[in-house]
């Protein structure tokens, strides 16, 4: 068995990564829960957000954490426009169409980035990139600790918005019964676009927390998109608790799996969980039966 002294930091590391995964998955699960669409462009949108944070730091000298109030509204506006003007128009009410349209969007975004920024992998250097924090004997890098706290705080804000505000009530109404929501006077198309916008705003926040300890290149989103799908499916499509728990769980599985089987093979655990959940419990851990 693995030594506890190795396992413990690995679990902690997994939790910090998992919190960011959870934030990304929250956006995805919100979009799914409300619009019943699987947003294939989620990874590409994260890539866009990461480039945004990168260039804000490089060109304007804005620290990634300070960039939060810029990135979150920017990604929100991007998402709102995408749903309102592209995805909503193409859907014709069919799931497969939306899959294809979001796939098309991800192809376009990814290759636009490739065209504009080349395939170079870029990362940023901050004063705190290499700083570590000692947590009960385990050394964890400071940006990861911040990411953990920041991701959970963002998730809490999101849950408050959904639970306590009129917008949140409208969103939940549309998720449950869109026809009924329309009948009581909710502008469903607007709420759909708001949900999509909030979903991408989560990515804006995630990008700010990720970049100090991560990198960006045109295909960086691909690595996240399947992981985010896994979390959403594991937690139950549309379930917020599920996305949070699932995110943390997957982060730990990846980290410990990597320790055990090596970096490359460790990822396989995630996909095997994904396939197993899809096959045997497609409603997920916290989802209602479809």
């Amino acid at each position: 068995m693995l030594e506890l002294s190795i396992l413990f930091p690995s679990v902690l590391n997994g939790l910090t990564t998992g919190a960011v995964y959870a934030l990304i998955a929250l956006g995805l699960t919100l979009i799914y829960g409300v619009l019943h669409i699987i947003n294939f462009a989620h990874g590409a949108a994260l890539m866009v957000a990461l480039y945004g944070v990168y260039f804000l730091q490089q060109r304007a000298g804005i620290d990634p954490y300070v960039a939060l109030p810029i990135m979150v509204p920017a990604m929100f506006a991007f998402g709102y426009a995408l749903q309102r003007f592209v995805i909503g128009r193409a859907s014709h009410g069919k799931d497969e169409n939306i899959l294809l349209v979001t796939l098309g969007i991800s192809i376009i975004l990814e290759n636009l980035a490739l065209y504009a920024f080349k395939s170079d992998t870029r990362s940023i250097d901050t004063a705190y990139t290499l700083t570590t924090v000692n947590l009960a004997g385990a050394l964890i890098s400071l940006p990861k600790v911040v990411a953990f706290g920041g991701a959970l705080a963002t998730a809490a804000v999101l849950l408050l918005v959904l639970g306590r505000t009129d917008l949140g009530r409208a969103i939940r109404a549309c998720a449950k019964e869109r026809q009924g929501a329309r009948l009581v006077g909710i502008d469903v198309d607007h709420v759909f676009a708001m949900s999509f916008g909030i979903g991408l705003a989560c990515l804006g926040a995630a990008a700010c927390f990720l970049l100090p300890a991560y990198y960006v290149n045109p295909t960086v989103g691909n690595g996240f998109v399947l992981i985010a799908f896994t979390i959403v499916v594991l937690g139950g499509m549309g379930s917020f608790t599920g996305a949070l728990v699932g995110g943390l769980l997957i982060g730990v599985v990846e980290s410990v799996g990597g320790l055990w089987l090596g970096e490359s093979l460790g990822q396989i655990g995630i996909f095997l969980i994904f396939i197993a959940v899809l096959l045997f419990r497609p409603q997920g851990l916290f989802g209602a039966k479809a």
Partner: protein
Amino acid sequence: MKELAGILVFCALVALAPQFISSGVTLNLIIMTLYAALLGQAWNILGGFGGQFSFGHAVFFGSGAYAMAVLQVKFGWNAWAALAAALACGAAVGAFIGALSFRYGLKGSYFALVTLAFAEVFRILANTFTFTGAGVGLMLPLKESTADLQFADKTGYLYLILAFVLVGLLVTWWLKRSRYGAWLQAVRDNEDSAAALGVNVFRVKLGAIMISGALMAAGGAFYVQLFHYIDPHIAYGPAVSIEALLGPIIGGMGTLWGPLLGAAVLHGLGELTRAVMGDVPGVNLIAYGVVLILMVTFLPRGIIGLFHKKAKDAPRA
């Protein structure tokens, strides 16, 4: 019968092309268009006729490609025998994934996701094991003879890919007029009604994914013979999966000529963007993405849909 005649005329015309075209570039374009058409035909059988949208068709492509390469390089098999094994391998992987996902009733977006995940698992496995050459990939030694399925000039490859496309056309033609094809389309249009009428939904879908997998594996095998090289990213990466579904969606899903038409349009578009924008990476794919969105928004029945007025001829995307 008219369609069968059309298939034969088309293949005869393409087969005669090398008599008139000496330019290697043009022949290459024809070969690559036919190759894309083959991938599209494979996807079309499951996606267009069966209504099961796969986002990970690379899993069959890669398995065919690796079967072809590993059997020749590591086990010294003859290329033709390896080709037969590659097709069987594609069908077997199809049976495996199909048995799992159709048994548990996965459909729609869930099926798309699970195929994507399988492709990813296979990619990681191919990246890890040494007998697949791990991350470095496998090189096929150069042996240019028909016995080894390698050809000194492009004409040989043209005939090889044309033969595959012909098989694809014939299978599609058969699906359009056979009892099995009718079952498959019934399952696509309404699974519950089909089941109520006594169609064995599970077996029909399983058959479709196996045929589709074998045809896709042929594409992989062809790739290995043409480029003499395969690595995990080429074999199981998302590019192939996307190429396979773009053609039929743009040309027309569930139609005989849709995949070919889509492949021709896409390659024409690719050449056009290259001519206009220069050889910049990604530009042709941006154009593909734009076309995909425009097609789904405005022409959900594909280009072929423009010519068919009858709504029941082709499924809406």
